[in-house]
């Protein structure tokens, strides 16, 4: 198995570009992070940590009219975890909630398949580049980190929408 199947060019580019990174308070309707704040309708935020390596990401999602209006994130970690957050930003913003759920489910299925499930670019778009990660069991968590956070944030946002 070649390393390049894991570190596809697209992944390395996203890891550097970090699209959607930065939780500037002005871009959201809620101040980042602080515990105990009142929930804001349509907004959810989730922090996820990979205890193995200390990678962490915070994702904030705003939902309105049944769609993800904004998905922004902040974090630090390896190229796989940062690239997957960057790709997710591009795919999720503007997606309907049903579409978003389908996207996350397809990504998870592919990653957990140990290489058995081929990526469907129709559903996954740029996230198909993570297909190679599924063969590296230790890295699946890295790729899922932001997505788990986004799923959790979206759930909160929906509950309060």
């Amino acid at each position, binding site marked *: 198995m*070649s390393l390049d199947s894991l570190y596809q060019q697209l992944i390395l580019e996203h890891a550097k570009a970090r699209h959607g990174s930065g939780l500037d308070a002005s871009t959201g309707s809620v101040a980042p992070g602080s515990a105990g704040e009142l929930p804001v309708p349509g907004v959810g935020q989730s922090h996820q940590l990979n205890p193995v390596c200390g990678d962490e990401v915070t994702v904030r999602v705003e939902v309105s009219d049944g769609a993800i209006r904004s998905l922004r994130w902040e974090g630090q970690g390896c190229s796989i975890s940062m690239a997957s957050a960057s790709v997710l930003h591009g795919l999720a913003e503007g997606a309907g909630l049903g579409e978003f759920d389908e996207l996350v489910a397809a990504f998870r299925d592919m990653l957990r398949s140990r290489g058995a499930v081929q990526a469907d670019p129709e559903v996954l778009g740029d996230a198909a580049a993570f297909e190679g990660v599924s063969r*590296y069991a230790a890295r699946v968590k890295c790729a899922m980190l932001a997505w788990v956070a986004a799923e959790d944030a979206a759930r909160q946002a929906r509950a309060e929408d």
Partner: protein
Amino acid sequence: MALVKTPSTLQHAQPALDDAEVERIRNDFPALAQEVNGHPLVYLDSGATSQKPRSVLESEQEFYEQRNAAVHRGAHELAVRATEAFEDARAAVAAFVGVDPDELVWTSNATEAVNLVAQSLATATVWAERGRGGAETRRLALGPGDEIVVTELEHHANLIPWQELAFRTGATLRWIPVDDAGRLRLEDAASVIGPRTRVVAFAHTSNVLGTVAPVGELVALARRAGALVVLDACQSAPHLALDLRALDVDFAVFSGHKMLAPTGIGALYGRRELLDALPPFLVGGSMITTVTMERAEYLPAPQRFEAGTQRISQAIAFAAAVDYLAHTGMDRIHAREAQLGERLAEGIAGMDGVRLLGPGPGEEWHGKGRIGLAAFDVDGVHAHDVGQYLDSRGVAVRVGHHCAQPLHRRLGLTASTRASAYLYTTTEEVDVFLDALADVRAYFGVA
């Protein structure tokens, strides 16, 4: 008079193992002779766990084929053979670290051994409150106003049990800080360790920095304060000649799997009178004298701390492991690994965009050189990615915080990459690793 000062790490009575001997040693380790990702395996993760020589694997197999029985019970022949082998193993491992057999308690690993001490001290506190146990046991009780001292560079195994002990007893946890480079601030130790200090627990050798602690100085401070000393010898017992009695510590812990033995076996050394005063950790079968429906009387150490059916084959294999090490010669292993550590440090420190953690090449901290271990940070490339790249070249290293989050935080990092050698590591392997490391930044497009 010598004009050039020889680093103390190189002043070993015995010469270092040479390349030819290391080649012979490698033949004893089946796991080393394999390819990984199309390259010969370069195993530089012995700090996490060591590979095992055939003699260790065979001793375990031989036990199951010839002597398998539960120990310390049963009158039949196999039980006698098993018990003898089990107790001989204790004597062998005890002798390897310079203590008496009845001062050595088997545990699962070093982590369990630290927990044994910390939780038994918590139990001593409860016993004292409820009027149970003799004067020696009551003296071990902790309470508000008492202090437990660790260092900022500890492995979580030698930190969290003390946090919990402090919580349970109302004692305060304090620590000796490290400076920006990670060096223990001995000048602060004298104020941190004081009359309220009851326990001083520290690593003999850092699993991140590869440094050897100033044991003498810390023990002297602890003695002045009347505190117990707990030594985490997890990274020293495998790599240097250890004489726990000479170090004058009260307790010491180490894990078999880091020193050629199987997983599942470790040891606690405890000064005899302390072990006998300490309440048991786990209770149940095999550690009692008389039991009624209301209460039980406990055996003296070490059986008092060995409840339940023991890790017999692992203990026997542990003895085979220390035989292998002693036969090779710990001073020679230490000297060899000091050379490899130096080569690692030099190669890593000389690379653009790579930060070596711990002492620089040729540097000594507290009068001691680096052991055969080096952790580092690659600028612009996360440790996980560094490790993945090295793995693609056949090189196995450890990535992450190495169970030392506070130290990493103090060094301004969340994770690092660590290469660690052992008696079977060749000079070429270190060079293969360094060559691969030199390509990492280019691969990830940051150089």
